[in-house]
Structures are given as structure tokens and as C-alpha cells.
């Protein structure tokens, strides 16, 4: 078990299997809000679903409408259970705030591997 502490963006507790992208992620055009599947050809998560996962990626990119896509995913029940960024930007962080999805940044993402069991509790990230 390994515990890390980051910067709190949206308070809350969640856990799940880590889905890790090494690349910036776009929500508008990057994820289908009805299924939670990544549809961005440039993403290393292409074709995978983020639903219920602890979604780990460096930071968001793409259209500023992305915040509403996160809210939409929440309504459809295909949102990630938590979001971990290296350094967050406004699109994803506001999306997490209005959708009530726990979120932390300033985490060394190289310490999290795909499939790890990850718990997010406030600003803490617990792996294993």
C-alpha cells in the first residue's frame, strides 16, 4: 500500500480500478457521454470505458464545453468515480466540481499503473 497526498480540487471519497492515460484528455469529442467510452483516436485509452474507474491523466485539453460533458456522463451514470491529474486545468476541474466527482491533482502519475486499486479520500490517494 502506498499513500500520496495531492492538492484537493473536489472533496469526496471514491475508489476503483485505475485507468491511466499518459496523454492529455479531451472530454468534448474525446469521450462519448452516453457510454463513457473514449472516442479520441489520439488517446492511448481509445475504445476503453472510463465508467466507474479512477481516471488518471496529466491534464485536460480540447473544448471548454468539456465541463458539461462530465456533468452529462454523471447523469448517464458513466462518469469516472474519481479523477487524478498531474496539473488540472479549469475545464476538467469545474466539471468535477459541478458533477460532484472527487478530484485531486499534483500527484506523481508514474506511481499509478493501469488496473491498480486506487482510493481517493480528500487530498489523499491510496494505492493497493
Amino acid at each position, binding site marked *: 500500500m502506498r499513500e500520496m497526498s495531492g*492538492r*484537493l*480540487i*473536489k*472533496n*469526496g*471519497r471514491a475508489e476503483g480500478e485505475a485507468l491511466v492515460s499518459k496523454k*492529455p484528455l479531451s472530454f*468534448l*469529442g*474525446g469521450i462519448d*457521454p452516453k457510454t463513457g467510452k473514449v*472516442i*479520441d*483516436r489520439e488517446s492511448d485509452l481509445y475504445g476503453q470505458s472510463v465508467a466507474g474507474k479512477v481516471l488518471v491523466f496529466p*491534464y*485536460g*485539453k*480540447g*473544448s*471548454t*464545453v*468539456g*465541463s*458539461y*460533458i462530465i*456533468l*452529462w456522463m*454523471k*447523469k*448517464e451514470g458513466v462518469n469516472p468515480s474519481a479523477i487524478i491529474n498531474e*496539473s*488540472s*486545468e*479549469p*475545464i476538467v*476541474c*469545474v*466539471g468535477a*466540481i*459541478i458533477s460532484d466527482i472527487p478530484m485531486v*491533482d499534483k500527484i506523481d502519475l508514474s506511481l499509478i499503473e493501469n488496473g491498480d486499486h486506487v482510493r481517493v479520500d*480528500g487530498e489523499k490517494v491510496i494505492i493497493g
Partner: protein
Amino acid sequence: MIIPDGRELPKSDQMKLTKEEQSIYDGEQGEVLQKAMEILVALGKIYDAEELVPIRSVQIAGVSYKNLGEAGIEYLEWWVEHNANVQAFSTLNPAGIDLGRWKELGFKEDFSKNQHHIVDLYEKMGIVPTCTCTPYEIGNLPKFGDHLGWSESSAVSFANSYIGARTNREGGPSALAAALVGKTPCYGYHLDDVRKANAVFNVSADISSDADFGALGVLAGRETKKGVPYFKGLPAMRTFNFKQLGASMAASGSVALYHVHGQSPESRAGDMIAEDHEEFDIEGLDEAYEYLNTGGDDVDFVSMGCPHASMEEIMIIANMLKGRKVRSPLWITTSQATSCQATAYGYKDIIEGTGAKLISDTCMVVSPIEDFGYDTVATNSAKGCYYMQSWCNVRTRYGSMRQCIDAALTGRWQK
């Protein structure tokens, strides 16, 4: 404030709030302002903002029903039901349909009804329903140094780079929150140091067609990612070249500000290259053209006006089309205001006389284009290619205005 599991929310002590702002944050001025302030303070805290700064104007994204969905409508309805009203001059991003001509153009009735409802909700909050991604063309024109709360990645890039105004890339909800409070947290591109370039691009590639700027943006956006690019070696640019370059980098990376040596205002006012920067050479654009051209040679549809076409672009297109007939449908998207101008000057009649359409309020990125069943769409927008390929599931052809017009006239893509 206590959250459901009993712990306290982080306080806003890192940011100095005025008495007035603190009273809003504490809920003494009602739920609407409090909720808006909560978003602003959360952002300010995350980005170590020291204070809020008053803003001159706001551009609000999150309008198309395609992107908002039912969740977004519920979110907006909450604000309207609680009598939210903006305090800063605010304009609106494109909708998913031409609000006036949706029936004639084949948009579905259900979608259109929802779309009108969304625009009405924004209007009720005091936002001008401009429905354009180029607000600077039609009256939301800030000046050098103004602080703004803009969303719409291409407009943000234009305001920062071409005008030298100051805005971060707001999301739809944070722009709305900023509009309701009339302020935004002062961090990021509101600050002098952050506006300096950390990626310098020495461009020796041939930049001769209008499409080359969008293609260059694909390569530079990928390299720069979140930073600020500085271009050396570019030829004299037209206003719409800035628009295409910025829109492209906002889609391929998340570039919100760039400088062009000797041409953009901040690069002319002082040295905008940070001491700590990386250098890149761009010797050719083939890789970008390959990425943007996934489509076949038969073109089902041609889309221009992403970001929305300016009067200058509409004039150029009208002159190219004059007296001809299109074989593939051609849509040129712009704002209603610019379309009214184009009507007054006769360009709309010229364009529509060829069978092409001058469409208002929407664009290919936010309209439900996948409903029309196209395989290959041609466009002069690199940003459009990004969104159409993934979000709309169509293949694309990318090239200059001339190539797009030729594709519309012949139904074939010519290299």
C-alpha cells in the same frame, strides 16, 4: 460550509476576498451569487490566485443541445428558476442549429425544440444570444490589456493573442459564474509572467495557402501542449489566419495564447520569450496534412466557417462562387449578425444563388452532423477536422478555401 460526510470544505483563506466578495461567498446575497462564487473561489484556490479581478466581458460556451444534453438543461434551469442575472456584458457561443432556418435545413424537430429552450434560458439571464464563436466580430470586442472571462477555446486564443486581452480558458460553467459575479480569479493568463512564451517555433516550412496556418497549428499545438508558443518566420498574416492558427492549436493542444514575431501586439510591445524555453524547428507540414486528410476523393459535403466566417471570408467565398452551381452541398457558417451584413451587401444572394447555404448560429462542430449520414466532409478548418473525426464520426478532407470551393463545385477533392 459542511459537506455531506461531515467534514469542512476548504476555506478560501488563500485568496483575499473583499468584504463584499466574502459576503457573497457566505451566502448573504442569495444562493445564486453564492453558488457562482463557490466555483470562482475553488478555481482561485486551485490556481493560487490572490484576488478576484473585475472583467470587461464574458463569452459563454455550452450552448449546443448536442453537448449539453438533459443534464446541462437542468443545470441552466436551476439558475433561471433562481432569477440569475449576469453582471458583465455577455455573449453566447454557437447553437446546434440555425435558429431561424432549422426546418428548411433538415434539423430534427426534437433537437431544435431543446435548442431553442437552451438559448431562451441564457437570454433570460441577460446574455445576448449572439450564438457565435467569433464574438469579437460582432460587438464583443475587448481592448488590449482588458481582463475577460471567456470560454470557447478559439475565441480565447484570439482575444489573448490577436487582441492582447487577458483571459484563461474558462469552461462553460466557470464563464457563467464569472458573468454572474462580474469577476474572475486573477491567475494564469491574467498575469504578466504567465503570458511569456516557453515554446519557440522556427518555421521554415512554406506557408503560402490559408490552410497552412491550420496545419501549422496541428504540429505546434502537439508540441506546445499547455504552454505558450512563439512563432518566428511567418509571412504577414490576415486576421482570419490568426483565427485559424489559434483554433487549430486549441484543438490539437490546449493552447490559449500565442505570439507571432512582429505581428501580434504583445510581441511588438516587448520581449515575450521566457528565459526558460524550448526551441522547435518546423520544416514541413506533410504530417499535419496527412492527419487531417482521412477522407475519400468523393466529397459528400463541404463545410466552411469554423470558427465562424468573417465578412472578409464571406466576400472571398462569394467571389469564388459567383455565377457557378455547387454539386456537393456547401455550408458556410457564421453569426446571424454577420449574415445580416452579408445580406445587406449582396453576398448572401450570390452564395445561395449557387445552391450553397449561408448558415447562422451554428457550425459543424456543434450541430448534429452525424444525423445527415455523410462519409467524407471537406473543410478549411483544422479544428473542425478534429471534432468531426471523433465526435461526428465522419472522415475529413482538409485544404484551402480554394480547394474547398472547388470540391463543392465538382464534388471531388483535388490535391
